[in-house]
């Protein structure tokens, strides 16, 4: 497939996942701030901004309204929800003939109705906005799953999604949370990954740090765990490059993802739980360098032209 289209699909995957993850994260944290009378709003907001990698000035007190403006409503930066949706839609617009009309329409309509939802959120609270984003991203994923051929384009879409997801869950776990010893914090963290109920099914109602971390980092069945996301990314890379079946390390993207996955998979669980950032920051780095390696390997259309010499 065209390199340019492949790149668009990869980024659509990333942006849609980012919008979804950010909405879940915000939803869980806002609920926590609202429900828990002892929370320190400023501190909670700072943790959330740290997870998303958004700078928070020391001297300005952070509150939920400010948070929504920064990481939800801002349509100028792709790290906020509205911006991620706009970026996904812009990529889809350039790949309209390559994706299904339904996928395009889904993103187009979502993008068009975001301002309306923002106004509704001002009246009814942030939930209507965040719920909408989750619904629409789920709809997009469903349409992609059922109306796009599962060929290379699909692999790029899923690859983008998986790398974004691995990165997001890893970020969530690697940030030093102030109240990390309280079970309620881990309920919030699990909810922020859409995994609270799945966790209950797996481990029962006893939420503690060790179990929650193991679930979100290492669970093989939960689709938003870091391990599961890295494994999916590896599978995508493998099917994009079937020639390399005998020497998987020869693909630079595959190598970094594979290394990150095995490092996590065979880590000492006690150490992992004790020092999350040591184990999870490398995962974030691996996602970034895998993304670069994929760009170099597949998205090469922007290389400078060398036609001048060939003219005789």
């Amino acid at each position, binding site marked *: 497939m*065209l390199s*340019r289209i*492949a790149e668009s699909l990869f980024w659509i995957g990333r942006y849609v996942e980012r919008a979804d993850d950010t909405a879940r994260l915000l939803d869980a944290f806002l609920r926590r701030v609202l429900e828990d009378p002892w929370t320190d709003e400023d501190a909670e907001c700072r943790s959330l901004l740290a997870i998303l990698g958004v700078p928070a000035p020391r001297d300005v007190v952070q509150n939920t309204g400010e948070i929504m403006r920064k990481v939800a409503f801002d349509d100028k930066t792709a790290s906020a929800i509205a911006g991620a949706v706009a970026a996904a839609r812009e990529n889809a617009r350039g790949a309209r*003939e390559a994706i299904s*009309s339904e996928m395009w329409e889904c993103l187009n309509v979502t993008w*068009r109705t975001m301002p309306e939802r923002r106004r509704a959120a001002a009246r009814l609270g942030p939930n209507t906005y965040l719920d909408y984003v989750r619904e629409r991203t789920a709809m997009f994923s469903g349409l992609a799953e059922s109306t796009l051929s599962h060929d290379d384009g699909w692999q790029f879409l899923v690859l983008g999604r998986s790398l974004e997801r691995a990165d997001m869950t890893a970020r969530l776990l690697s940030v030093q949370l102030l109240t990390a010893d309280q079970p309620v914090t881990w309920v919030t963290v699990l909810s922020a990954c859409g995994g609270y109920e799945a966790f209950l099914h797996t481990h029962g109602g006893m939420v503690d740090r060790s179990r929650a971390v193991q679930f979100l980092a290492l669970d093989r069945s939960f689709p938003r765990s870091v391990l599961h996301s890295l494994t999916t990314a590896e599978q995508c890379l493998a099917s994009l490059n079937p020639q390399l079946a005998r020497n998987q390390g020869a693909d630079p993207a595959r190598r970094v993802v594979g290394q990150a996955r095995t490092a996590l998979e065979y880590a000492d669980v006690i150490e992992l739980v004790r020092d999350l950032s040591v184990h999870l920051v490398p995962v974030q780095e691996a996602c970034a360098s895998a993304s670069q390696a994929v760009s170099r390997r597949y998205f090469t259309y922007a290389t400078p*032209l060398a036609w001048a010499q*060939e*003219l005789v």
Partner: protein
Amino acid sequence: MADIFDDYVLAQAWDEMFEMPGVPRPAYEVLFAALQPLESDDLNFRAEQLSRMFTDRGVTFAMGGEERPFPLDLVPRVIMASEWDAVTRGVAQRVRTLEAFLADVYGPGRVFADGVVPRSLITSSIHMHRAVHGFNPPNGVRVHVAGIDLVRDEAGAFRVLEDNVRVPSGVSYVIENRRAMTQSIPAVFGEHRVHPVHEYPARLLTALRAAAPAGVSEPTVAVLTPGIYNAAYFEHALLARLMGVELLEGRDLVCRNNKLRMRTTDGERPVHVLYRRVDDDFLDPLHFRSDSQMGCPGLINAARAGNVTIANAVGNGVADDKLLYTYVPDLVRYYLNEAPVLDNVETYRLEDPEILHDVLGRLHELVIKPVDGSGGKGIVIGPQASEETLVEIHGVVASNPRGWIAQRPVALSTAPTLIGDRLVPRHIDLRPFAVNDGEDVWVLPGGLTRVALPEGALVVNSSQGGGSKDTWVLADEAQRVPAQRATDLAALPSRVSDAPFSGARDAGPTVQMAQQ
């Protein structure tokens, strides 16, 4: 109770729907009967639905960096089979003539030697490209796609307003309009037998494949677009999708050893036929504008070497120059030895000093057009122009008579159009699309009807505030293909008899109801 046609006052022009107030023409009888009982609220509701459908689907054109839906009017334009027959013959004739002319211009030049068209007309055309002189396209086709703009004059006769044989656009709206109309007024549509328009992409693909370079049996066809900021990007994407081919931008392409290739995730892959929606000037920085990023350096050489076909061909602009337009009826007789089926609008060539003098004296009665304009740009409609505009155009035309033509203002026919909550007459034109596969010139039954939305306006281009109507060409009852009979369908295996119990679909475990 007032009906929606009550306030409809005929304008000083041929009305498509009404012969006289309240009396529809034969083609419109069914439509009139179907629309009349509707309330204006109902019309408005459907019109809103239409517009939202377009915005959601992204059926837009870009204007000043903004995406806007192309307004589609709820009331279709209907054309009888017999009338359409003349349009088809006239358009095909025009395309065959222009093909012959282009082959002549870029070849032997008989038409100049025989004195039918002055050579100076071609040498002074900015669209004459020496880079393609002496080059014969693989199957002889240069005009793979044509859009011939027609208007209906005061007497109801179709006339050609201009020919477009470079990169005519608008066919996507024909396809999308039909889809939207069948959804928003299904019952009205169902009462007519309308020729379908969905065949277009397949016809286009066939023509493009037929134009493949010699020796290529399974050609790779692709569409070349300037990118998502182009006004017609939606159309480029739609055609690529419906033909199942790649939509390329300049940066996807590379030319090496006179071969055109596209950059894919599996390395570079050849492209054999390029349906380009990029103007000549931007196609190849080696030959044309050196600052263009929209094309691919080396493309023209690759085409000249016979490794890639560019459709439509480079240099077609000489044939849709508006000064050449005045010669087309002569060219029909010269090349085809036929009488023109469709007349031109009366047009004045301004290179003759006497005619120029006469025209300059009565600019306020005429329409003045630049010979190389498109999209309604630069047109001055004398009777509607301000004094300053007329003074200005006087100076411009006097200093460059080759650059302009003058035409009698035709009161374009009108059709009922929903403005606010009323149906009012608005001027319309018609752009039928023709596809030439080298064997046959096929004319899409339908075409784009454009509407000038402001009252009295005569310029219909979308960039000038135009809208469109779905164009219904009624099928000739005599040509109906009998439908497949029910008895043939009986041969299909029955689902029911295969099912474990009668009529049931496979179902999961059912919830047991309490027995008492």
